[in-house]
C-alpha cells in the first residue's frame, strides 16, 4: 500500500489519473475509516489535505467557493458562511461533534453521498455547482444531478471534487436547515429539511426545498416548492405546502425511525419553520 500526500492540484490529478479506482482518495476520513473494508481493494492512498489550492472559503462575487479541504469547523469560523449562507451554517452547527467537525470536509460529506448528509440539503437549496477536475479538464455538475443512489454519485474514476460554488443569501432571503435527530450532537438525521426563498412584499419567489433522510438520496422538492412559488406566505399556504411535502417524500423504516414518523416530522418541520417568517 502506498501513501501519497501531494501539495499541489496538478500532482493530485497526476496521481488520481494514474491510479484511478485503485486509489483511496482521503481527507478527514471520518466516514471512511468507519467502513471496515474501505481500503480492501485499494493499492494507493491519496491524501488531499495538503493541497493548498483546495483549502479556503473564497468570496467569488455573488457566489462563495468552498475548497475540497474545507471542514465543517472552517464553516463555523467563517463570517461569510454565518452571514450569507445561513442554512449551511446551521448544518455545520448540528453536524457530528467538535472532533468530527475539525476533520470532516464538506466535499467528503458530498462524495460519501448519504441521504442523511447534513450539508447536502442546504447545498441543494443554494443551487450548488460541483467543480469536478480530471486530466481532461473541469466538469461542472449541479448538486441536484450528482446523486444516483445511497452512497452513489456520478463522479468518474480519475475525477476529484475540487470546489463547491454556492449562491449567497441576499437581504430578502428566508432560509433554514432543520435536523431531527436523537441527540443534539453525534446523531444521524432521522429527517431534515432545507429551505431557501426570496420574500418580497409578503410573496415568495425562487423557492427551493430539499429533504434529507427520507429517500434513497436527498430529495429536491417538486410539488411543494412549485406550489409556494409566487404565493403569499401565510398559514394557509404553509399548511398546503406541508401537505405536499408529506406526500412527496419516500422514507423507509430503518434502525433509526419509521417511515410514518419521518413523513409526519417533515410535514411538521415545514410548518414550524415557515410560520416564523409569516
Amino acid at each position, binding site marked *: 500500500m502506498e*501513501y501519497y*500526500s*501531494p*501539495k499541489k492540484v496538478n*500532482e493530485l490529478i497526476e*496521481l488520481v489519473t494514474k491510479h484511478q479506482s485503485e486509489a483511496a482518495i482521503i481527507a478527514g*476520513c*471520518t466516514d471512511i475509516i*468507519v467502513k471496515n473494508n474501505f481500503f480492501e481493494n485499494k493499492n494507493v492512498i491519496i491524501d488531499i489535505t495538503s493541497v493548498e489550492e483546495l483549502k479556503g472559503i473564497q468570496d467569488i462575487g455573488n457566489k462563495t467557493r468552498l475548497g475540497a479541504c474545507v471542514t465543517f469547523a472552517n464553516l463555523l469560523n467563517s463570517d461569510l458562511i454565518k452571514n450569507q449562507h445561513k442554512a449551511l451554517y446551521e448544518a455545520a452547527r448540528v453536524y457530528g461533534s467538535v472532533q468530527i467537525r475539525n476533520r470532516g470536509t464538506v466535499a467528503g460529506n458530498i462524495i460519501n453521498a448519504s441521504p442523511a448528509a447534513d450539508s447536502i440539503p442546504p447545498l441543494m437549496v443554494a443551487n450548488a455547482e460541483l467543480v469536478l477536475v480530471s486530466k481532461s479538464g473541469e466538469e461542472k455538475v449541479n448538486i441536484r444531478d450528482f446523486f444516483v443512489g445511497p452512497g452513489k454519485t456520478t463522479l468518474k474514476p480519475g475525477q476529484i471534487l475540487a470546489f463547491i460554488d454556492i449562491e449567497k443569501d441576499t437581504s430578502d432571503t428566508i432560509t433554514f436547515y432543520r435536523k431531527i435527530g436523537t441527540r443534539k450532537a*453525534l446523531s444521524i438525521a432521522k429527517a431534515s429539511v432545507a429551505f431557501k426563498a426570496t420574500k418580497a412584499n409578503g410573496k415568495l419567489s425562487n423557492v427551493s426545498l430539499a429533504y434529507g433522510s427520507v429517500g434513497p438520496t436527498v430529495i429536491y422538492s417538486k410539488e411543494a416548492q412549485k406550489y409556494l412559488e409566487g404565493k403569499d406566505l401565510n398559514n394557509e399556504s404553509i399548511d398546503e405546502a406541508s401537505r405536499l411535502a408529506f406526500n412527496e417524500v419516500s422514507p423507509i423504516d430503518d434502525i433509526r425511525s419509521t417511515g410514518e414518523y419521518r413523513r409526519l416530522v417533515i410535514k411538521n418541520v415545514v410548518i414550524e419553520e415557515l410560520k416564523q417568517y409569516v
Partner: protein
Amino acid sequence: MSKVTTDKDTMNITLNINNKVYNTEVKPTDTLLFVLREKLHLTGTKYGCGEGECGACSIIMDGLLVNSCTILAPQAQGKEIITIEGHENDELIRKLQDAFITEGAVQCGYCTPGMIMAGRALLKNNPDPSVDEIREGISGNLCRCTGYVKIVKAIESVSQS
C-alpha cells in the same frame, strides 16, 4: 512528489507528541489511535468505539480537538499532537486533572482523558466559556457514569481560576 512507501507495505513516520519526537514503522492504514497505544505505548488515550462516536480517543492536533481513531497515522506527520500524557509540560492539563478529582468528575475514568483533552482544547481557545459553551465543547465525548454535571463543573472551575 511527496510519496512515502517501502517494499514491505509499511512506512516510517515521524510524530511530534507532547513536544517529543517519535519515529515508528506503520502501515498506511493504521489509525493514529492504534499507533499511540500499540506502537508508542501511550495508553492514556482510550479506545471506546473506534468509530468517532464516543470521543474516548480524543487528542489535540494543531490546536484542534480530534478523534484519533479516525485519523490515519501518516496524516499526523508534521502536526503538533497533545495527548493526556502531556500533563508533564502543560499546566492547563494539570489544572483540569486536579479539578476533575476535586469535583468528583471521575468514576470509571474511561472517558476522562478524552474529556480533559476536550476541556483543554476549549479553554485554550475560549478561556472564559459559558456553561452552554462548555457543554458544546464536550458534546463529542460520551460518559456513561457521571451524568456530565460534575465534568462541566470541573471545567468551569478551571476557567474561573
